[in-house]
C-alpha cells in the first residue's frame, strides 16, 4: 500500500477514534481530520471541495430553516396537546399517541428537531398527570429514530444515501422503507405499552385536567402558521416530484426555506439562519473530505473488494452483513461518519461487478437509522432527550436506556432482516 494511503488511513482512524471518544467536539475533530487530508497532500483543495456533497448540505440547511420558523407557530405543541386530549388524558393511550406523532413528524422533519419540539410539551403533560416523563421520553426517542427511517429526509443517513444515489428518490425511500417502518413502529409501541403500562397510572382528576387544556392557545401566530404549513406542504410535494421536476432535493428544500422567508419577511431571516445547526453542517463537510482521502487513495476500493471476498460475492450475505454491521456500529458510534464511509464502499462494489445494489442501500439505511436506538449515544436525538431529562431532574442512565433500547433495536433489525430477505433477495 502506498504511503499516501497509509497516511489517509492513519488520519481517518485517529479522527474516528476522537469522534467516538467525545473528548473534543465532533465537528472540530472532523474538520481537523479533513484539513489534515489536504495539508498532507493526500487531497488537493479543489478535489476536497469537489467531494463535499452540497446536495446533503443544502437539504439539511433548507429543512432546518423551514422547521425553525414552523416551530415558532406552536403547531407541534398544539398537536401534542390535541393528541393527549384525544386519548382522554389516559396516560398509556397518551404514550401511544405521542409515539405515533413523533414517528410521523420525524419522517418529515429531522429527528433532533422533532424531539426538541415534542419533549417540552411532554414534560407539561407528564407534570399534569403526575406521572414520570421517562416512559414517554424513551418512547419518543425510539419512535423518532424509527419514524425517521421511513423517508429520504427523515434521518441524516437517508439524506446522505439519497443524495449519493440519484435513482433512490424521495418516493423510492417511502415505497421501500415505509412498509417495514410501519410494522416496526406498531410492534415497538405495543411492546413499550406492555413495558410501561404499570408505571403510567393517573387518577381521574388528573386525566380530567388534561382534557381541560386549551390546545388552541398554543397556536400563537395564525398568519405565520398558514404560511409555514403551506410552504412545508409544498416542499414535501416538491420532494415527491423532484425527479419529475429534474430538481435535486436540496433545491426543493432551499426553495421552500427561502420562499417561506420571502413570505414572512426579514424579521425571521436572522433568527432562522442562527438556528441552523452549523456545527452539524461543518461536521458533514469535515467527514466528506475525510472519506474523500480514503477514496482518492484507493482504500475504499480495497475495503469493498475485501467485503466481496468475505461474502463470496453473495448478495444476500452482503446485505445481511451491511444491515447488522451498520446497526451494531450505529448503536455505539455516530452513524453519520459510518454511513459516509459505507456509501463509497457500496458504490465501489457496483464497480467491482455487483449488479444489484438496491438491497445493500436499503440494508444500510435500515441498519444505520434503526441502530441508533440501541444506546443513549446511538443517535443525536437520544443525546438531546437524555440531556433535557437530566435538566428536569430525571436521570436516564446508559444501562437504564440500554435495557429497553437495545432489545427493541435488535427486534427491529430482525424484522428488517426478514423484510430485506423476502423483498429483495
Amino acid at each position: 500500500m502506498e504511503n499516501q494511503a497509509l497516511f489517509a488511513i492513519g488520519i481517518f482512524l485517529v479522527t474516528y477514534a476522537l469522534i467516538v471518544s467525545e473528548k473534543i467536539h465532533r465537528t472540530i475533530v472532523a474538520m481537523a481530520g479533513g484539513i489534515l487530508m489536504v495539508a498532507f497532500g493526500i487531497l488537493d483543495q479543489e478535489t476536497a471541495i469537489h467531494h463535499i456533497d452540497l446536495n446533503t448540505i443544502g437539504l439539511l440547511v433548507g429543512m432546518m430553516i423551514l422547521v425553525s420558523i414552523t416551530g415558532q407557530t406552536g403547531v407541534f405543541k398544539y398537536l401534542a396537546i390535541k393528541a393527549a386530549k384525544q386519548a382522554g388524558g389516559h396516560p398509556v393511550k397518551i404514550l401511544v399517541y405521542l409515539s405515533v406523532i413523533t414517528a410521523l413528524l420525524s419522517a418529515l422533519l429531522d429527528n433532533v428537531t422533532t424531539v426538541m419540539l415534542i419533549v417540552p410539551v411532554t414534560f407539561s403533560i407528564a407534570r399534569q398527570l403526575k406521572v414520570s416523563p421517562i416512559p414517554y421520553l424513551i418512547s419518543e426517542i425510539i419512535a423518532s429514530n424509527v419514524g425517521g427511517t421511513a423517508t429520504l429526509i427523515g434521518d441524516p443517513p437517508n439524506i446522505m444515501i439519497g443524495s449519493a444515489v440519484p435513482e433512490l428518490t424521495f418516493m423510492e425511500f417511502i415505497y421501500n422503507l415505509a412498509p417495514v417502518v410501519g410494522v416496526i413502529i406498531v410492534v415497538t409501541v405495543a411492546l413499550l405499552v406492555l413495558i410501561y403500562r404499570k408505571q403510567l397510572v393517573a387518577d381521574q382528576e388528573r386525566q380530567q385536567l388534561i382534557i381541560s387544556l386549551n390546545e388552541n392557545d398554543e397556536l400563537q401566530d395564525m398568519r405565520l402558521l398558514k404560511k409555514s404549513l403551506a410552504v412545508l406542504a409544498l416542499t414535501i410535494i416538491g420532494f415527491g416530484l423532484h425527479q419529475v421536476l429534474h430538481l435535486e432535493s436540496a433545491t426543493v428544500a432551499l426553495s421552500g426555506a427561502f420562499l417561506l422567508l420571502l413570505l414572512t419577511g426579514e424579521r425571521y431571516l436572522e433568527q432562522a439562519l442562527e438556528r441552523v445547526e452549523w456545527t452539524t453542517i461543518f461536521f458533514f463537510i469535515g467527514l466528506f473530505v475525510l472519506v474523500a482521502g480514503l477514496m482518492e487513495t484507493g482504500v475504499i476500493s480495497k475495503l469493498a473488494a475485501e467485503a466481496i471476498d468475505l461474502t463470496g460475492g453473495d448478495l444476500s450475505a452482503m446485505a445481511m452483513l451491511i444491515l447488522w454491521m451498520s446497526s451494531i456500529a450505529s448503536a455505539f458510534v455516530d452513524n453519520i461518519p459510518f454511513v459516509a464511509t459505507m456509501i463509497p464502499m457500496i458504490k465501489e462494489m457496483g464497480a467491482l461487478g455487483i449488479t444489484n445494489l438496491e438491497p445493500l442501500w436499503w440494508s444500510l439505511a435500515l441498519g444505520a437509522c434503526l441502530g441508533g436506538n440501541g444506546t443513549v449515544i446511538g443517535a443525536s436525538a437520544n443525546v438531546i432527550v437524555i440531556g433535557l431529562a437530566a435538566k428536569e431532574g430525571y436521570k436516564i442512565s446508559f444501562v437504564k436506556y440500554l435495557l429497553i433500547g437495545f432489545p427493541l433495536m435488535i427486534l427491529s433489525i430482525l424484522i428488517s432482516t426478514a423484510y430485506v430477505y423476502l423483498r429483495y433477495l
Partner: protein
Amino acid sequence: MVCYEYDKSELTILETKTESDYEFCFQIFDEQVLRRLKQLRAEVENNDDLTDVHFVTKLDHQYLAGVRHNFRLEFILLLFKYGIINAISRNQE
C-alpha cells in the same frame, strides 16, 4: 413564602411548590395583561433552555406555568419586566 403584589382587578396569581417545580396559576381578566403574559411566555419558550418553564392553558383561560426550581428567581424578574407584578414581599407565616 413570597407574596406577589399586583392589580387584583386585572389578574390573580396562585403559586404552589411541588417536588419538581413551582407551579404558577394565572387567571387573567385584562387583555393587556394577557398580551404581556404571552410575551413573557414567548421569551421563555424561545430562549436556549427548553425546560426552564412549561406553559399550558386551560379551557377556562387559566394559565399554568411550571417553573423549574433554579429558574424561579429569573421567572419572578420576568414577571416584573412584563409588568405582571408590582412588588413582592415575604409572608411571615
